[in-house]
């Protein structure tokens, strides 16, 4: 891997960038300095301004103040096209694909090879196939409609799209959030190939171990300001990075667990028997006891979301689901909710949030009946309950009336959790609850989840990050190709072991 020499001239310099949104100064004088051929990591808590900064760089937002120098020249990035022309391509955090178009059409959208406006379909497909093969995903067909792809596959398409331009700088905004472990390794391989050709990469992630593995230098943002420039990714201790990001020390990432076996006598909150979803999940049985966190480990696409959704009644399935000793009929989540379940779905924006609506309305959505009499809402009670959750979970900014779409990902995730906490659940189904959530907030979320368990709630946790499952859950089930292939106490497993099982199907 090429080492960037300290004296090599900057490819990109951003100085004093300011970006103001109504009510928020998202960027308050940010500096960034990126060299050719390096992987430059951009770190910061949720809402620190990372995405906003790279959108300024991509020509999506116009900065209110500040200067950008690219390739030695001062530039004005007035539109996405302007940035693309300069050789800056971007993989956005919110996937920027058009569901109704095919993979190839998405990859070449806006720069289709065409003669007199007529697209050369075969050429587009061939080029796309090559790009995908280069990314190690030859199995994705250029003609498939993007709407039918899994989030992970969409991420790959976004990547192919970024590579389809002649580019000198690629910006990746949390590319690994939707990727499983082996996919991340593949991503790193690609990044190394790029940097070897002198392309610079700006890499954003909340997984600090990735930074250490792939990064050369680090810039840290906090509250829209640069708090550290050009740190060495390899040599700066994680604790220092974390305290730069959060302004405090995050001591214990995972909260302490109760003694092994301490759940044995507790009542079963959930019992699932012979659950099958045709073609996706076969014959899954599991139990969750009161106070227990049960983790589902597995690859993306292993069928964990289907298991959770089937339990919740959100997807047609056969088998028995028993909550607190009472069978729950499937087919409609409202029955599951009435029985005492709650779900934090995998795709927060698409499945969890009313983006246009306020934080409060998002939080109170599932508990309206609690403050309503004959359908009439007691708004004071609604507001005070929501406010309590905002304080307890540390949702920032702590405003009830803000549209939730303006909150950072981590804070949005907390709001989804808050929705169920108000309503006194017996069982929480958490599907990738920390996706896109920063270290500080993660630690807080872990603490909240453990506290809930300690209060007697059963938790079924899906996560693609093996350390998270191992660190947080009491008991772990390993899912592969729609089946549970292993079950044991979390303390009896280590990361390698689990990875072997989820990838190779090797028994414990």
């Amino acid at each position, binding site marked *: 891997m090429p080492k960037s020499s300290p004296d090599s001239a900057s490819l990109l310099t951003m100085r004093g960038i300011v970006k*103001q*949104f*109504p*009510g*928020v*100064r998202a960027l*308050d004088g940010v500096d960034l300095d990126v060299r050719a051929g390096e992987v430059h990591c951009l770190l910061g808590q949720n809402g620190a301004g990372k995405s906003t900064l790279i959108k300024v760089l991509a020509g*999506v*937002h*116009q900065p*209110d103040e500040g200067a950008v120098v690219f390739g030695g020249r001062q530039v004005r990035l007035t539109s996405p096209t302007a940035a693309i022309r300069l050789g800056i391509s971007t993989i956005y955090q919110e996937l920027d694909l058009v569901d109704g178009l095919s993979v190839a059409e998405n990859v070449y959208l806006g720069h289709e090879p065409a003669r007199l406006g007529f697209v050369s379909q075969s050429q587009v497909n061939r080029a796309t196939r090559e790009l995908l093969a280069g990314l190690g995903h030859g199995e994705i067909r250029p003609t498939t409609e993007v709407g039918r792809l899994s989030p992970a596959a969409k991420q790959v398409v976004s990547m192919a799209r970024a590579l389809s331009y002649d580019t000198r700088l690629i910006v990746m905004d949390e590319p690994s959030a939707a990727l499983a472990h082996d996919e991340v390794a593949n991503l790193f391989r690609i990044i190394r190939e790029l940097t070897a050709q002198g392309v610079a990469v700006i890499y954003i992630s909340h997984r600090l171990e990735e930074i250490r593995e792939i990064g050369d230098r680090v810039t840290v943002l906090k*509250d*829209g300001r640069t708090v550290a420039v050009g740190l060495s990714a390899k040599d700066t201790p994680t604790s220092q990075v974390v305290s730069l990001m959060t302004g405090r020390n995050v001591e214990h990432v995972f909260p302490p667990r109760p003694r092994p076996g301490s759940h044995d006598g507790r009542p079963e909150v959930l019992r699932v028997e012979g659950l099958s979803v045709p073609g996706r999940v076969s014959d899954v049985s599991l139990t969750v006891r009161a106070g227990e966190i049960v983790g589902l480990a597995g690859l993306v696409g292993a069928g964990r979301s289907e298991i959770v959704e089937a339990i*919740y009644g*959100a997807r047609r399935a056969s088998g028995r689901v028993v909550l607190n000793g009472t069978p729950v009929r499937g087919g*409609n*989540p*409202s029955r*599951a*909710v*009435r029985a005492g379940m709650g*779900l934090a*779905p995998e795709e927060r924006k*698409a*499945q*969890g*949030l*009313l*983006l*246009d*609506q*306020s934080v409060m*309305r998002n939080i*109170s*959505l*599932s508990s*309206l*009946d609690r403050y*309503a009499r004959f*359908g*009439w*809402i007691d*708004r004071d009670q609604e507001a005070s309950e929501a406010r309590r959750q905002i304080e307890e979970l540390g949702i920032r*900014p702590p*405003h009830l*009336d*803000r*549209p939730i779409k303006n909150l950072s990902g981590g804070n949005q995730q907390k709001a989804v959790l808050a*929705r169920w906490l108000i309503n006194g659940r017996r069982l929480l189904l958490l599907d990738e609850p920390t996706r896109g959530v920063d270290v500080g907030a993660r630690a807080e979320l872990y603490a909240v989840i453990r506290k809930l368990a300690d209060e007697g709630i059963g938790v079924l946790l899906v996560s693609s990050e093996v350390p998270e499952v191992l660190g947080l859950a009491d008991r772990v089930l390993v899912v592969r190709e729609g089946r549970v292939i292993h079950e044991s106490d979390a303390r009896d497993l280590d990361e390698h072991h689990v990875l072997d099982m989820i990838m190779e199907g090797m028994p414990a």
Partner: protein
Amino acid sequence: MSDSSTPAVDEQAPTRTRDSMPRATTWNRLGEIPHLGLIIALVLLAVVGLVTVPGTFATASNLVSVLSLAATIGVITVGATFVIIGGGIDLSVGAVMALASVWATTLATQSFGPFVMIICALLVGTGAGLVNGLLISYGRMVPFIATLAMLVAARGLAQRMSDRKTQLIQQGNQVIVDMSTTRVLGLPVLVYIFAVVVVLGWLLLNRTTFGRRTYAVGGNPEAARLAGIDVRRHTVLLYALSGLCCGIAAVLIMARTTTGSSTHGDLYELDAIAAVIIGGTLLTGGRGTIVGSILGLLIFTVITNLFILNGLNTADQLIAKGLIIVVAVLLQRRSLTSRT
């Protein structure tokens, strides 16, 4: 569509610091600021009225006339607001109103007296709405098509029931006609009915779980479903509500015209939807207000009233109406940042 091509954020005033949150949002929710454009437009129209027809426009009797005119379609607009916020559309409103008016004024129905006639109109409206809702929810038909089919079928049924004749309200059932002629504190009873429907609609939308769920179902049906809302049932209820409003409107049009007829309510669907959208509700659902819809409707009604008072000819009146719509909307541009 292109609205969303420009991110909303670029438009707004850029001078607050990170921590000073604006208080404006509460007000927005109350509907104060987004309706500003509509209110300005109404005021401008009033000024035009005062200037061009000073002696007539600002009289009490003209006001009553505007409100009576607005009442029928106003009631329908309330229902349409719910449906559209809930992410749907109801093209059948005018036809369902016509069918309800015809059904309620057949000789057979009339023989049971005014009370039964009213009940009949409400039931027919609600029933047609239910059918819409079931076709859409459980038949999984696109709302546009399901309610278009209802439009066509309801008009046909109304023609067939009435044998294409206008059905007069009989002498014995004049109570219904009295709604438009009897005045209480200077206003005809039907204006009060209109007001009551608006107030109840507002309360239902803003103060009840039903209203909240309507926003959720329209804003993100998948999220609503996963939050435990029975989206299908709710959808059925929304169309039934719209149908009920058509039934009420049928009673009002019976009162105003003293008849039931298959021709009543022609093109009301366009007027109602236009009022709702001018009022700031998005066709994509999840957003909107009753107050906005009613203001939108009043703008249309006052425009018509002004034309009547000024004796404009149809052609000029249509041209002017087109221009006024454009101006009114550009005035309230800020609330239209998202897509439809």
